[in-house]
């Protein structure tokens, strides 16, 4: 059995990296990520973690050095937030296109200007075309579990892609919750040694990234798309194994709550799903047939899994904590295009963007929005396709 400890979300990330026995960590401070690397530095200097920390001079170099370490065969890890993630964006692509397993935690935060350190998903969702597996946690236990699982998923030969794990700054990052930590030996046995497709360590002369002709280039990227498909299976397998070994199974790419007989679905991702679930529980008591689909992985996007749940529903409302300016919330647009593949007769779909810049959305807000959505449809009207829900 593991042990229960009180950890902030950031410390849960740090401990997951420790349990994965990372070899090299390269990181740069940024609010609200900083306490992850502070904790890891402490674990290294106290001798609890046998790893090398590279205290780089920028986020661009943080991911560059993480990439370098991973290419040379190290289990490598980094973490960042917001502007830092944007600054390293070039290497976000570089790492996945090189098919290098690595793990990065994103403690999400709004983008500037204006300067704002509160959480939303703008930084995280900005990376969704980059070829990373993208998972997002709801509470600190899941932060730990998902970060640890990320190493397993990333190094699976069917995947060989880097994984980023999102958690909201402050809401999870700096909030203390009880987290069950596993036994190290069980983790070691399950995770195994570092695996990768190739390693550049001087043993054999290999060159990574030489110029390639258009056809070769495209074929390489088609492999990434295939790996993303494989990842759907791998994520579910890892979730199952992890559930058996450590007693916590989340459901794979999505988690469904109150879904069995639901006629309406609310879709969300991240910590505010907790408030959404609470709101739905309350509405259930009031007789509303509604369930929650919590997206745990938005890359690969769980089209099939969500379709299975919503195919007989009357309405789906998607809550986005980021906005693609000039379009709608990214989870909504992804879901809408995906579901269109399955049917010409979509349920009524509606998108609410909220909580941008860290505006606090409570379960009362969710209850209000959900009630209005359901009642509009029940009356035979159509709710707006897009709402930017704002309050002060």
């Amino acid at each position, binding site marked *: 059995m593991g042990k229960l400890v009180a950890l902030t979300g950031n410390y849960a990330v740090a401990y997951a990296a420790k349990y994965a026995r990372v070899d090299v960590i390269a990181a740069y401070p940024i609010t609200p990520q900083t306490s992850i690397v502070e904790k890891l530095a402490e674990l290294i200097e106290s001798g609890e973690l046998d790893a090398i920390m*590279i205290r780089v001079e920028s986020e661009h170099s943080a991911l560059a050095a993480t990439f370098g370490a991973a290419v040379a065969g190290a289990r490598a890890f980094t973490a960042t937030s917001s502007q830092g993630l944007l600054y390293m964006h070039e290497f976000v692509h570089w790492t996945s296109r090189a098919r290098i397993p690595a793990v990065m935690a994103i403690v999400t935060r709004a983008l500037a200007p204006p300067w704002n350190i509160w959480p939303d998903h703008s930084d995280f969702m900005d990376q969704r075309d980059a070829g990373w597996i993208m998972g997002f946690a709801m509470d600190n236990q899941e932060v730990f579990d998902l970060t640890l699982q990320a190493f397993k998923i990333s190094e699976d030969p069917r995947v060989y892609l880097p994984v980023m794990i999102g958690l909201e700054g402050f809401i999870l990052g700096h909030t203390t919750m009880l987290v069950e930590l596993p036994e190290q030996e069980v983790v070691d046995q399950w995770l195994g040694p570092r695996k990768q497709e190739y390693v550049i360590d001087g043993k054999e002369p290999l060159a990574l990234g030489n110029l390639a002709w258009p056809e070769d280039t495209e074929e390489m990227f088609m492999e990434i798309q295939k790996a993303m498909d494989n990842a759907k299976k791998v994520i579910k397998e890892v979730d199952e194994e992890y559930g058996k070994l450590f007693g916590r199974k989340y459901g794979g790419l999505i988690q469904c709550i109150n879904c069995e007989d639901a006629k309406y679905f609310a879709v969300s991702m991240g910590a505010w799903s907790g408030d959404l679930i609470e709101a739905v529980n309350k509405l259930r008591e009031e007789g509303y047939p509604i369930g929650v689909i919590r997206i745990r992985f938005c890359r690969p996007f769980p089209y099939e899994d969500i379709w299975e749940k919503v195919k007989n529903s009357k309405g789906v409302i998607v809550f986005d904590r980021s906005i693609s300016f000039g379009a709608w919330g990214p989870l909504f647009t992804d879901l809408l295009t995906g579901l269109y593949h399955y049917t010409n007769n979509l349920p009524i779909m509606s998108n609410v963007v909220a909580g941008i810049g860290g505006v606090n959305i409570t379960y009362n807000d969710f209850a209000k929005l959900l009630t209005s959505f359901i009642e509009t449809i029940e009356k035979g009207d159509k709710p707006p396709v897009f709402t930017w829900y704002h309050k002060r």
Partner: protein
Amino acid sequence: MTTSNPQSPKPRPPLPYNMREVVLPGDAACPGCPIPMAWKVLSAVFGEKMILVIPACCSSVVVGAYPGNSLKASVVHVAFASAAAVASGIAEALRKRGITDVQVIAWAGDGGTADIGMASLSGAAERNHDIIYIMYDNEAYMNTGIQRSSSTPYGAWTTTTPIIGKTEHKKDVAKIMIAHGVPYVATASVAYPHDLYAKLQRAKKIRGFKFIHIHAPCPVGWRFDPKYTVRIGKLAVETGLWILYEYYDGKIHLSGPSRPYIDPKKRKPIIEYLKLQGRFKKITEDKIKEIEKYVEQHWEWIKRHM
């Protein structure tokens, strides 16, 4: 330390025998390109046991297209600003894994070093990772078609200084690296392979961050006949414009080929270097005087730190 006159009629082992295996014929370099010349010297020192970390630059093209590579050594191509950072990561991973017989070398042009890569270079130097950072300096953005960099010399034509020529002097990156307090800094030239060889041998024995700045005349960008790559490299030294030295133990150590030119009377006139290159075709007397002044100041600085 061996420094030598490359005009010597006797071969000086281990060059050229150790240069034969790693740099493979038929690469994509322009005729007369200095890059593979320098790689041959690297290979004489490290053989296959080197990992070159190469950001965007001519070298990313020279090694050729997938699935082939013109070097029988390891290469990691990386984003423009990141050579030093990726090399840091590789070096630390090798250390963690207990691999000690492989040299990590960041191999970047002047743009990737003096301009866009300066921050990551400075960071890696300050952290003193056990790598060799080599800036091969062809004094402009050659791969994109001869645009001005901060390492382009005063008065030189480039496609972004097309009429007046560059109005600022060259950024002295070796000096900047000396200011970082790293254990080893050297300047070198592709025209002096034995000198470069000796410097790499010394760098190989030193733990920590090593910086070597290689002067690399580019026939296409400097507008000269490709057969003159070595001649122009030598003229840069013989006119005193490019000074070969090493910095370690807190001091500058002037290298053999540059030693005579501490005496200004022994230097060839700068015009001999300039006149072979189309990029200085329109240079004026005033500008040549300005270059002479700059060269003299550089020598004074060298002398003060010897």
